[in-house]
């Protein structure tokens, strides 16, 4: 990476962040809701990206973890407890359940793992729907309060959007740090060649479970924000299709790329709004677009970008090589 390229990136990042803070200030209620939803779904998709994109473990249960987080927040905050406590419970709960769900991953891989997590997803949905004493069943929990942060009430849409955006920022920094730490390297090794990783002395058992647990915990964080965002939680949003949607967000954005989930969640959450004029055809168009994208680039949108950047770099490098070679030839 050249120095100038790095400055451009930092500048671009600063502009995007400033834009996310300033531009929505005069958005209406609904626009803010959609943007907050994007931030929340990005957090959930980042968790899945850790599990799937970096550690290479297929999970169809991320939606269930968002559900667990949402119910934890809904139940606790409507009892009068602060959201931060609910967030802690959601993280610990999802981390532990994710850890346990990781055990099948030690025995089976790929499609089998997909089916175990799929089964878990459906089981979690059944619990949300049937355990009336805890979750109020199909009637759901309504009037979920929004938190006070340092004495500021976040009841209005704009302050709560900043809560979501701030959480996204904190989670992003943590994930950025994680994937650059030895753990992140170990996750990559697990994805690329688990047997080699094992032979290099990486405790693949522990890292597989870790990948599941941390990814699930981020699902829990997203859920704990989702509940106060919608202020109403019922089982329907957390059925299997949320897990499939999150998986598609990660793949469409680009699994294994840091910014993949941001892009994927943007497409999944914002595109319906832009495609509103197509009415009922939106999801059909979305499905066709996803299939075409996967045919063209199975590594998602960032995969296309990555490939073209790599090609340009090789072109520049080979041009330089040609120049250098001709200089060598003409040299006396």
């Amino acid at each position: 990476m050249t120095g100038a390229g790095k400055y451009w990136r930092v500048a671009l990042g600063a502009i995007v962040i400033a834009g996310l803070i300033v531009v929505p200030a005069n958005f209406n209620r609904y626009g803010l809701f959609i943007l907050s939803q994007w931030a929340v779904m990005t957090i959930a998709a980042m968790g899945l990206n850790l599990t799937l994109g970096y550690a290479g473990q297929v999970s169809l249960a991320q939606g269930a973890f968002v559900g667990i987080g949402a119910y934890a927040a809904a139940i606790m905050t409507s009892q009068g407890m602060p959201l931060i406590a609910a967030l802690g419970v959601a993280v610990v709960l999802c981390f532990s359940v994710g850890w346990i769900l990781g055990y099948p991953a030690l025995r089976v891989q790929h499609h089998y793992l997909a089916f175990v997590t799929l089964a878990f997803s459906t089981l979690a949905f059944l619990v949300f729907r049937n355990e009336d004493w805890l979750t109020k069943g199909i009637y759901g929990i309504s009037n979920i309060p929004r938190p006070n942060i340092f004495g500021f009430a976040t009841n209005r849409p704009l302050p709560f959007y900043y809560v979501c955006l701030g959480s996204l920022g904190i989670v992003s920094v943590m994930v950025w740090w994680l994937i650059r730490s030895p753990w992140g390297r170990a996750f990559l090794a697990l994805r690329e060649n688990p047997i080699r990783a094992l032979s290099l002395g990486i405790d693949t058992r522990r890292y597989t479970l870790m990948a599941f647990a941390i990814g699930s915990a981020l699902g829990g964080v997203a859920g704990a924000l989702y509940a106060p965002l919608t202020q109403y939680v019922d089982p329907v949003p957390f059925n299997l299709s949320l897990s499939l949607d999150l998986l598609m967000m990660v793949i469409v954005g680009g699994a294994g790329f840091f910014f993949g989930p941001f892009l994927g969640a943007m497409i999944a959450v914002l595109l319906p709004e832009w495609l509103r004029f197509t009415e009922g055809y939106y999801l059909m168009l979305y499905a066709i677009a996803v299939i075409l994208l996967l045919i063209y680039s199975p590594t998602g949108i960032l995969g296309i970008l990555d490939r073209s950047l790599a090609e340009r770099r090789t072109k520049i490098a080979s041009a330089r090589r040609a120049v250098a070679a001709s200089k060598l030839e003409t040299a006396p």
Partner: protein
Amino acid sequence: MSNLLDLLLAGLATGAIYAIVAVGFTLLWQTSQTINFAQGEFVMLPAFLVLAAMHAGAPFWFAILIGILLSLLLLGLGFKTLLVNPMLRHGVLPLAIATMALAIGIKEAVKQFFSAEASPFPSIVPAGDISFFGHPVSLQSIGVLALAILAVVGLTAFLNRTSVGHQMQAAAQNPTVARIIGVPVERMILLTFLINAFLVALASLLITPIYLAKFSSGEVLGQAAFIAAIVGGFNQVRGAIAGGLLIGVVDNLAAAYVSTQYRAAVPLILLIVIILFRPQGILGRAEERTI
């Protein structure tokens, strides 16, 4: 006791339908590493094709014919050439995810172009009860079971007794060697997709009269078929059959004896237990671990 017999019979009838769907699912996996997450939607769609043909004025038997032909064309040939062929080189997971997108697409298309409401569907087996040793038995269950058994027996006979069937098995088990000994592997793979399309169309005709035609009914069916395929054995046709029958019976018994709220959970728990303790399935062969 007679109640138990009824439950068993109804369970076997739905289980036989699951088995048909699961067999198609495993065939696709064996010949072209396709995990078809849209298999449930594949079962949902043919019923709507038949209904659309009937709305256009075709008599029932002719509509069925059109439905089966269109399924062969769309869910067999179209699915293979438009989605599986271009995706196959990218590996198992991207292909599986593309089928998830396809599932959404099919569901939405039916909702948009046909109806979001459940539509009744005429039964190809006459309704009513017959007396069996003085005990009334649902004619529909018997008919469904008989047709499903016929389909499964016909398919296994085709796979095990005919030359084309042997070639298909060879193409599935070792495509490289099959190609060397002159099996037209590509044509055999296409044939599997067509067989799958026929099986889902048949399952659609059998199950839709029981559960009504609805755009979202594929989710439950697809899951039942996955579970049946994995519980029985992912790499064996007879495993898928056994798995289907088992899931059908377990599902019906669970509804009666466990709780209606958690009936769907029993097959899922069975699935998790099987995957943890016998991942190759009840009748499956263990797959070698490749390094």
